[in-house]
């Protein structure tokens, strides 16, 4: 019965988010245009290093000369990371600003269910968006994928679930600091960079490589590229998939515990409407 109620609440939140999203069509268009605006300069950067149309230097680090395919896969995975972080953290700040967060907290729906509801619409739109962007980039710049799409999706799933744990953590931080933009922007950017969104992490300075290796997302990028592009991977792909499953279990548990603790703290302090 409780589960049914949660599902009804999640459905209502998705409906509300969809209504707001389609109310501002310029935003919908720019969600497709923006990733292309980010990818295009990197495409031209890769051209500046090409010898006879191939990124020979890049293949020495990664095992593939097709830098565009490497970059597009990185961008797609990053867009899911961003969707969870912005979908959870920023939506809370938005509700604070608009002044509805207190009334939402008074409903008999746990905060974690509300957060999941908010990120689901964001994930649906990200999937549609990522596929559209990949298609447009393929048309504009061209890239090749070896195959194994189903296996790549199977690898992406535990990572996505694990990211919910991270999203809970970010939401907790936003609740405590009342500051969303800077926290999410910087965390999101650093995570993407350090886990190798647009380059193999082996090019990082030695001092940063341990940090990069400690981020489970790194293995997500690496395994998916290994499956789709046959790139050199840091560890054998099944080991990387195992790390992601472990990350999923630990991430969700720790994220949920932190969120529960912060929720209790905010309810005691009464500070959720402050900004």
């Amino acid at each position, binding site marked *: 019965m409780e589960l049914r109620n949660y599902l009804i609440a999640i459905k209502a939140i998705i409906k509300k988010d969809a209504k707001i999203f389609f109310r*501002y069509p*310029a*935003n919908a*268009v*720019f969600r497709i*245009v*923006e990733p292309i*605006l*980010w990818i*295009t*300069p*990197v495409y*031209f*950067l*890769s*051209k*500046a*290093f*090409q*010898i006879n149309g191939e*990124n*020979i*230097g*890049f*293949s*020495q*680090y*990664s095992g593939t000369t097709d*830098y565009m395919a490497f970059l597009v896969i990185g961008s797609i995975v990053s867009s899911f990371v961003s969707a969870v972080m912005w979908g959870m953290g920023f939506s809370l700040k938005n509700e604070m600003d608009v002044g509805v967060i207190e009334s939402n907290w008074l409903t008999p729906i746990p905060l974690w269910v509300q957060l999941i509801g908010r990120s689901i619409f964001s994930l649906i739109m990200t999937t549609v968006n990522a596929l559209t962007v990949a298609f447009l980039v393929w048309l504009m710049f061209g890239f090749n994928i070896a195959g194994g799409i189903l296996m790549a999706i199977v690898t992406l799933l535990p990572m996505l679930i694990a990211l919910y744990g991270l999203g809970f953590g970010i939401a907790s931080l936003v609740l405590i*600091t009342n*500051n969303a933009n*800077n926290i999410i*922007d*910087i965390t999101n*950017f*650093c995570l*993407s*960079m350090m886990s190798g*969104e*647009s*380059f*193999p992490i082996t*090019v*990082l300075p030695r001092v940063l490589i341990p940090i990069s290796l400690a981020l489970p997302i790194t293995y997500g990028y690496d395994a998916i590229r290994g499956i789709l592009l046959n790139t050199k991977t840091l560890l054998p792909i099944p080991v990387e998939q195992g790390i992601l499953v472990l990350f999923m279990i630990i991430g969700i548990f720790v994220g949920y515990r932190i969120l529960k603790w912060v929720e209790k703290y905010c309810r005691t302090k009464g500070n959720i409407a402050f900004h």
Partner: protein
Amino acid sequence: MSILIPIFSVVKKEWRIMLRYPSWFISFIIWPIIFPFGYIFTAKALSGMESSSLAQFQSIAGTTDYVTYMLIGTTIWMWNNTMLWSFGSSLRMEQMRGTLESNWLCPIPKISILFGYSVSQLLMSLIYISLSVLEFMIFYDFKFVGSPLLALLILLVSVPSVYGLGFIFASLVLWVKEANSMVFLVRGIISIFCGISYPLAVLPSWMKPISKFIPMTHSVNALRAVISTGATMDDISGEMLFLIISGIILMLLGLLAFFYTQRKAKTLGSLGHY
């Protein structure tokens, strides 16, 4: 005199708000380090373990020092990015908070409000760029081959172009009532057409003439020439002349756009709509 007091008041108000929320300073410290990070390590990966790909980059860009190359480009991009967010969101925020109409009723020249935002933003940018240079020296081993004063002069000569664009942008945001998408679009155009992270020679031939008409391209080129290769005033005179002329034109266009928007908004009564 009547225009200076409201400008000063806007600057004072903006700084009060900024000091009330000091977390912006953290992003000022972190962004100069992390923003070029992606481009620099992408360039390192693309250059490979042997020197053949880097030699290819050198043949087009004229340097193997891609780190300094990226740092200069990304700093100019960041300056424009913060300016666009500041101009786009300042009037728009007042519109959303419902204070724009009451500000408009004040018996002051309305352009002074925009000038106030400009002065405040310029001060912030000066702090940002100074901090960036300092951090670049610490973390990226950044060095001036040429004159730092000449580099500063290039930045100052670029100010009218950057803020003229900002005035046009602020007027546009009042029209379309949407800041985010507009910022994404304009900063995207700058990053693609101005050679922020790559030499313009790699652009397709139809894109090159467009890039030459954007003042930021000339700011980036002149700064790279002075900082990386020690170019003198004579070497960059063409770029400086373009920046001065485009600055005058963009400033005039910006003022015209603002006055036109102001008149239109008064006639339509749409200032408070969002």
